[in-house]
């Protein structure tokens, strides 16, 4: 046991990958084993992440050399406060979405592709966990590609022509993004001779004096490449179609986790790999700030005019990912803390909102917002959960959305940029404009023809909703729970 404990960082990734390798075989010959194996492997990774969290809080950050070759020669995984924060978010929310998916997919997909869905889901989880842990640029690229293909595939798996078109658009744009990232990696390798983050950081100051243009091109390539994948504002064009047409569990994981992990990759590259004094000469972070704040406002405005509930949630994601990048771009301790916290908070909120929208579609078949009047009396549980998510999106105190917005605002004031506080307030107002009418109409509105409930919700679909909603409330009332971990992550990044 003690011998195995040292290998947990590798195991947490490889366990997901290996279970996905055997999934097609199970789907062909032992169909009833698919769901238990998928659930088992994700929950095993969740347990391992909790174990890693304890290990990190006890002994500090540590690294794991894959293949036994230490850092500059081999690939290494680094387990630090930031990566365990991401690990907990990914595996925890991913497990809940998977529990929800086991019931929802029966209704949304054909029987013979459900096995493939679990394969792709586990691969997506594995690649995201790998992205959170890896400390090597090229390994990061490989995981980004796995993540990109798997996230396109869980959209196109639905038998619907909008899905295929949205998926192809997403695939082509993310291929452009990957190309940009690879060119950036080539530029960095050319002037530093290393691929490991730690060694690149050491070599960068000297390289920046000798070859400044290379570094600048690499930085812009990374920004554009990750920006496309994380749907940073002018590059978000693929997101609304992709996230709204996908099956509900896919929307939940794509909006809740996949765009967040790219934000985490952005943090890893720009806050950990590049030395911070680069930003005094390169105005990159100002550009990121402008892009994200325009994205926050414009995304919210687009969300107001949507009629489809999932499309509205997708545009809201464009706005919310802006908060994360706003926090990164502020380059202050509290701002970064707010951004990192928002990764976790928005993962909870948006996956819950997508799942409750999916639950509404599952039981009533209604997608239009104007048809949702009076649904609160028919489906009280789902709508009250949806209301909690909506309040948290607006940033009402006692919910966790408030906490991250609070820290973002403090961070903006710390570096003397009160304009961004105004952006945050304006966006909260806009969020209220499109979320609160749904809640009010659902409970007090009188629809012309009342909605009929066709299917009763099974417990596997309601349980994740209840857990996520209570997590939103609990982390809203007792923010210390995640704040401690996020604070340590920020301290680690600042070093």
């Amino acid at each position, binding site marked *: 046991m003690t011998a195995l404990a040292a290998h947990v960082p590798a195991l947490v990734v490889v366990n997901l990958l290996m279970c996905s390798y055997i999934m097609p075989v199970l789907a062909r010959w032992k169909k009833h084993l698919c769901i238990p194996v998928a659930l088992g492997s994700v929950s095993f990774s969740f347990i391992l992440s909790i174990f890693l969290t304890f290990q990190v809080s006890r002994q500090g950050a540590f690294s794991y050399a894959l293949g036994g*070759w230490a850092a500059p020669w081999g690939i290494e995984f680094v387990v630090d406060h930031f990566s365990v924060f991401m690990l907990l978010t990914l595996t925890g929310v991913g497990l809940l979405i998977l529990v929800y998916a086991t019931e929802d997919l029966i209704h949304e997909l054909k029987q013979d592709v459900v096995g493939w869905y679990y394969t792709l889901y586990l691969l997506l989880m594995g690649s995201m966990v790998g992205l959170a842990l890896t400390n090597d640029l090229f390994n990061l690229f490989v995981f980004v590609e796995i993540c990109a293909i798997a996230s396109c595939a869980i959209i196109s798996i639905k038998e619907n022509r909008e899905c295929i078109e949205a998926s192809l658009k997403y695939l082509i744009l993310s291929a452009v993004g990957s190309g940009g990232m690879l060119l950036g990696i080539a530029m960095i390798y050319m002037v530093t001779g290393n691929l490991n983050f730690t060694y690149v950081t050491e070599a960068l100051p000297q390289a920046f004096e000798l070859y400044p243009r290379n570094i600048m091109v690499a930085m812009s390539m990374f920004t554009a490449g990750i920006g496309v994948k994380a749907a940073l504002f002018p590059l978000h064009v693929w997101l609304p179609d992709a996230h709204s047409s996908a099956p509900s569990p896919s929307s939940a994981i794509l909006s809740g986790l996949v765009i967040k992990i790219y934000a985490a990759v952005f943090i890893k590259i720009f806050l950990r790999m590049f030395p911070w004094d680069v930003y005094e000469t390169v105005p990159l972070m100002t550009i990121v700030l402008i892009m994200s704040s325009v994205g926050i406002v414009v995304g919210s405005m687009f969300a107001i005019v949507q009629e489809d509930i999932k499309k509205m949630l997708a545009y809201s994601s464009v706005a919310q990912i802006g908060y994360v990048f706003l926090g990164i771009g502020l380059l202050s301790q509290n701002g970064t803390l707010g951004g990192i916290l928002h990764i976790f908070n928005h993962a909870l909120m948006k996956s819950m909102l997508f799942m409750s929208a999916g639950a509404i579609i599952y039981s009533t078949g209604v997608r239009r917002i104007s048809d949702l009047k009076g649904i609160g009396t028919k489906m009280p549980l789902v709508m009250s959960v949806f209301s909690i998510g909506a309040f948290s999106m607006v940033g009402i105190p006692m919910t966790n959305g408030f906490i991250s917005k609070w820290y973002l605002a403090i961070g903006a004031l710390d570096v003397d940029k009160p304009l961004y506080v105004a952006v945050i307030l304006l966006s909260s107002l806009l969020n209220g404009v499109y979320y609160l009418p749904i809640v009010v109409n659902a409970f007090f509105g009188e629809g012309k023809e009342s909605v009929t409930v066709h299917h009763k919700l099974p417990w596997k679909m309601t349980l994740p909703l209840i857990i996520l909603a209570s997590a939103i409330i609990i982390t809203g009332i007792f923010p210390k729970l995640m704040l401690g971990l996020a604070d340590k992550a920020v301290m680690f990044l600042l070093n």
Partner: protein
Amino acid sequence: MEDLILTMIVRLILPFIQIYGYYIIIHGHLSPGGGFPGGAIIGASMILFALAFNLKEGSNKISHDTSTLLESGGAFGFAALGFLGVFMGSNYLSNRAAGFPLGIPGNLISSGMIFLISIFIGVKVASTFITLFFNLVEGKTHD
């Protein structure tokens, strides 16, 4: 519509292409090549066989069950090979430290894990390309 000349030529050169593919796979640690190009060559030779004869015969040569097993097995074998390192007291995916015999450099049977990984990857790549090709071909053109 089988063309006699075409089928004869394919019958003649197919063994050579396949042997070349196997050669590239198992000499991956001695000469340029390895699992990826070798697997691609073997896959391409099977596709050539299927194109020269009717498509039915080619897709019968490798059934869906076999290809599923080969794909999953290739990747799973590779990942499982890495665990040997964990049990031998080294790290995941290690070669010499996991006790693989390295042999004499330059011999065919040498370099421990590299040789085995090449074979697993060759199997995986060949079966992947064959499956991809047949599934793209078999899909209905019109609903």
